[in-house]
């Protein structure tokens, strides 16, 4: 074990003694390594849990005492009152340079240009920025010049997203845009563990082990499940950032808490990059379809028509369903269709098959509501009145349609058994965005 190895392992990373394969006595001698107790009363230093109900206690054979432990983050390795967390300083991998790292020749619209300038300013000022970009505004591309600027300054960058799917989508795009830069992707079950690369793409969950690592942290889809309600993930984001750092949030449907926060600068991109408005969903009442589907296996006639019509026109229909039983029944009843949901093992492959046209129709739960771009899709929501489809989800789902230049049309239909407030709010939301974008 050398000092160099320890500093490399704990480079902006905080670990339990159990996770460190070196002699702890030796580590304690190193001045640069910080040692902290993992729990402070009912406060978990690693995940931020401070809910009394999410701690346990027992007589601990390690410290021969009654010991508390955090249940919230126990799957990352048990953190008890007698556990210590070790962390080291974060170092940067790139030397400052004037060299251009960006390999991207796409044209920016005026709105995109304004936003990307804002990103660079925010990085210079180490401040906070919200980019409110309508679905299909090309928000990933907007940050490219900013990333290039940060790389030139030799800064540590992290792109965090609540969803594993989005990590998979972003990684190849960023590798293509920055071919010389080493990129580490982290998600549950990934093998690429905590390397010290200039760019890290990570699920918000995997951020929990970082400690004051990043100069620039970009958080995608701040409104998305599960970040909007899991405060331990917010805690992780704040821990992963250096004290003096840039924080940029991206969203198509920002929550009010961030939208109205005075400390966060804002830039809005109401137009899609191809200059067309968001498609306005059509509402179709189909009565008590659920009972008839689950008891008699009857697929609603209007949904059948929608799928057939879409396929006949050479398009790709996606049907969003509120739960797994409904999706499973539909898959059996609709020919050449497949159903994907979050715990489905072949989910990535099925989505690929659908993109390639090997599947006629895709049925999905809300897991595909974001981040997936497939040209020539039409979208139906079966049971748009179900409580799982809130305003945000419905706006996101409508945003799946017409994302590519070569396909700006495409239909969105919300099938329901009674208009909910959320349905009406989503329609209002889309109309407002289109108005801001100059469409009446």
């Amino acid at each position, binding site marked *: 074990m050398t000092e160099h190895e320890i500093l490399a392992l704990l480079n902006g990373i905080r670990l339990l003694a159990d996770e460190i394969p070196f002699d702890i006595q030796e580590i304690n001698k190193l001045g640069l390594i910080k040692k902290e107790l993992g729990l402070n009363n009912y406060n978990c230093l690693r995940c931020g849990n401070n809910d009394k*109900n999410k701690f*346990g206690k*027992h*007589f601990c*054979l390690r410290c021969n005492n009654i*010991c508390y432990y955090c*249940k919230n983050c*126990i*799957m990352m390795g048990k953190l008890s009152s007698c556990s210590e967390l070790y962390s080291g300083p974060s170092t940067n991998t790139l030397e400052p340079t004037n060299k251009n790292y960006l390999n991207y020749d796409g044209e920016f619209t005026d709105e995109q240009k304004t936003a990307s300038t804002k990103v660079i300013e925010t990085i210079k000022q180490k401040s906070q920025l919200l980019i409110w970009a309508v679905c299909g505004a090309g928000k990933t591309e907007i940050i490219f010049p900013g990333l290039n600027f940060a790389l030139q300054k030799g800064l540590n960058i992290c792109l965090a997203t609540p969803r594993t799917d989005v990590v998979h989508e972003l990684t190849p795009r960023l590798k293509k845009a920055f071919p010389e830069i080493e990129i580490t992707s982290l998600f549950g079950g990934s093998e690429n563990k905590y390397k010290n690369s200039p760019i890290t793409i990570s699920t918000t969950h995997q951020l929990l082990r970082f400690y004051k690592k990043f100069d620039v942290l970009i958080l995608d889809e701040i409104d998305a499940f599960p970040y909007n309600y899991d405060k331990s993930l917010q805690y992780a984001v704040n821990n992963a950032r250096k004290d003096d750092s840039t924080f940029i949030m991206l969203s198509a449907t920002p929550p009010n808490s961030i939208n109205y926060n005075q400390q966060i600068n804002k830039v809005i991109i109401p137009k899609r990059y191809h200059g067309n408005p968001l498609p306005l969903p059509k509402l179709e009442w189909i009565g008590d379809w659920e009972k008839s589907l689950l008891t008699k296996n009857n697929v609603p006639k209007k949904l059948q028509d929608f799928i057939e019509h879409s396929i006949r026109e050479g398009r790709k229909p996606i049907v969003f369903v509120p739960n797994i039983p409904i999706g499973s029944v539909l898959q059996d009843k609709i020919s050449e269709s497949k159903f994907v949901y979050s715990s489905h093992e072949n989910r990535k492959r099925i989505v690929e098959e659908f993109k390639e046209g090997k599947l006629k129709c895709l049925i999905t739960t809300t897991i595909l509501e974001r981040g997936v771009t497939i040209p020539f899709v039409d979208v139906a929501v079966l049971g748009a009145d179900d409580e799982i489809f809130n305003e945000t989800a419905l706006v996101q789902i409508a945003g799946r349609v017409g994302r590519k230049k070569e396909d700006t049309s495409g239909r969105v239909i919300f099938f329901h058994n009674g208009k909910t407030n959320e349905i009406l709010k989503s329609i209002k939301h889309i109309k407002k965005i289109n108005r801001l974008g100059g469409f009446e």
Partner: protein
Amino acid sequence: MICLYCLKNYNMEVTWTTIFKPGRKGLCSECCSNLEPIREETCEKCGREYDEQWFDNKHICTDCVAWENHPNYKEVKIKNTSIYKYNNFAKEFVAKWKYRGDYELIYAFSDEIKKTYKSKYKKVDYIITIPLSTERSYERGFNQSEAIAKIMDQKKTLKVLKKNETNKQSKKKKLERIHSENPFIMTGVKSTIDKKVLIVDDIYTTGTTMYQISKILYEAGASEISTFALFRG
């Protein structure tokens, strides 16, 4: 209420038990539904639920028949009781409890363990717990067998066994040892003479541990030996 296992909030039905025992910890209905209690018809020896694939006759399962023919354990009679089947959920549950170290998960079974203890083992003199090696004790921070014994009756709990950790031998030799030698040693030899004892563990899979310890206790003069394992694999 927060479910002990999945930490989700759930509504507990208000019953007499919940009124008299506020703050009682439990599982949500979804986690509960994943547990499979062992039904009444079981192997007379190991407590495994009757299932054609494991039984040549109605009374004793094929595993237990094999143990009857084992030269080292001829004199050992096993009488085991288990509450749940060791299904996939139970495996994940035990992994989180024992290996991840979420000690309090065992409280999900407090009522069932107490119920079984009161109905079957009221007359035992001692509850014998199964020792861990020093290394395992440190790794886990607790002993799973002691955690269950504590729920039954801590006053009757007796720690008279030790895990033999003497010589480091090569892997091949270790394998040989498993078949021939007993890894447990008795430390308080006289305490169990003419006593009724209950051996307690979390899982009964092959039965090896229960047979090894039963044999030691039998040789130490215990008058009656029974075993309890929360799960039967």
